[in-house]
């Protein structure tokens, strides 16, 4: 079984971004970048499927500037076999990303496509579902457990009220939640090995997909700021404040 894992380069989860002074966007210049945490979990899950003998090949793909090759190498250091880089300097919406990935899937014919459920920059939570719609595959989003059973997949999902288990025929799409696994650290020998793994670069035009602009970003502003309140000395004082000042209890 071939597994395709689309991944994204994002601002590191520990960095707090700031809005640009002209309110045109957030300022990402010179910030620490990383593999989106949910994508890292997706790569780890694919690697575990391969280690268990269920997956035969893991292909990672990323769409973006030349810099995304760093994250593709990271994914290969974690265990992916080869990488595809679709080069563009444009910021694409999830729908455009899904269309490009569909073109990749037409060539790759993966049986399982694992996405992170959302990227921590745009927080859209859309690409996996859109890809599943365009390729008419069944989907299981927000997965916390994935089991292969013959030619179907049993997936436990984190839903609002608790957990739900679905069974999907392959080929299928899964998007990962935080508790699916804990990604490993790449070892130094694996980082070295990853440098020699194949990485194909192609242009958006090579895929023959026509993209449209769907959304215009008008401005980006900082959220309403909360200011620190008061530090209290005792529980009694807290209860007094909540009752008589805030009047919330």
């Amino acid at each position, binding site marked *: 079984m071939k597994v395709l894992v689309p991944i994204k380069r994002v601002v590191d989860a520990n960095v*707090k971004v700031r809005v640009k002074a002209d309110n045109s966007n957030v300022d990402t210049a010179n910030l620490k970048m990383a593999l989106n945490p949910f994508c890292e979990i997706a790569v780890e899950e694919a690697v575990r499927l391969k280690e268990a003998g269920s997956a035969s090949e893991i292909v990672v793909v990323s769409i973006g500037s030349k810099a995304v090759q760093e994250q593709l190498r990271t994914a290969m250091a974690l265990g992916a076999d080869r990488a595809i880089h679709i080069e563009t300097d444009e910021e694409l919406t999830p729908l455009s990303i899904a269309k490009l990935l569909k073109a990749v899937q037409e060539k790759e014919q993966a049986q399982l496509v694992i996405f992170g459920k959302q990227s921590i920059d745009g*927080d859209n939570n*859309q690409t996996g*579902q859109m890809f599943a719609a365009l390729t008419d595959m069944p989907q299981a989003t927000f997965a916390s457990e994935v089991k292969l059973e013959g030619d179907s997949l049993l997936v436990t999902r984190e839903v609002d009220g608790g957990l739900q288990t679905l069974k999907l025929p392959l080929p299928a799409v899964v998007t990962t939640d935080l508790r699916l696994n804990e990604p490993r650290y790449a070892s130094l020998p694996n980082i070295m090995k990853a440098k020699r793994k194949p990485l194909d670069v192609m242009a958006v035009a090579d895929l023959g997909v026509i993209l449209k602009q769907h*959304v215009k970003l008008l401005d980006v502003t900082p*959220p309403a700021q909360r200011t620190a309140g*008061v530090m209290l000395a005792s*529980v009694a004082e807290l209860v007094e404040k909540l009752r008589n000042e805030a009047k919330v209890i």
Partner: protein
Amino acid sequence: MAILVLAEHDNASLKLDTAKVVTAAKAIGTEIHVLVAGHECAAVAAAAQQLDGVTRVLVADAAAYQAHLAENLAKLILELAPGYEHILASASSVGKDTLPRVAALLDVAQISEVLQVLSGDTFVRPIYAGNAMAKVQSLDDKKVLTVRASAFDATANGGNAGLETIDKVIEARTQFVSQSLTVSERPELGNAGIIVSGGRGMGSGENFAMLEALADSLGAAVGASRAAVDAGFVPNDLQVGQTGKIVAPDLYIAVGISGAIQHLAGMKDSKVIVAINKDPEAPIFQIADYGLTADLFEAIPELIAAIKA
């Protein structure tokens, strides 16, 4: 043109989220239809008919819609889509699962977690865990939106919308196997007026009993940080944050939670925030209205006693 709102429900009752999404829809237009897709869900449809502002309720009642699977639910919405310019759902697990599929099938963008409706095509939504607010304009002929329910007040009851039955049954290849839902007498996180949340500082699942007692003394819901869920103290559906539930109660009490940006993303719109933490440097204090530097194992029993007094 009309607006379609996907009802949020469990086949037995309509979730308050729907009333909040209807409020968002009212900011767009006046012809508002609610789609109730489910199985044996007549009571849900009846409740939707009463929502103020709703002009029609569409019911698709079939076994195939019982589990709200994105695969066929999206296709059902696609069938109805020609009659609508806007399609809305709550940014719940069902809404987030389904609407991107609908949007892709319509070849339009989906706009996630709308916080504010500025006009029929311009919306405000959070990016970067709520550290920035993006004002976006849709250039598509149809707008598919998930709405952050906590950012809108629920529309009142008092409506009397007509009912229409949708006979189309679309099967999914996806099969529902089972579910384990958390059963609780406490209010739901998304709609609670008061939330008491525990973090890694709670130390164990057993210790959460203390927070539950505090919650019960206040009629509150219980929430948690990711660290508390990852450690297995409490189930996943209690997680508050960027990747968990987004809440905005009147009072949020954070106990043994440090205040990571991802956690703040889920609760910083609460009206009043209380933080109880033994570390005076904990970042949570920077956004708390009332802070108490204390060992929670002493402070919580004291707090329960003081509230009951």
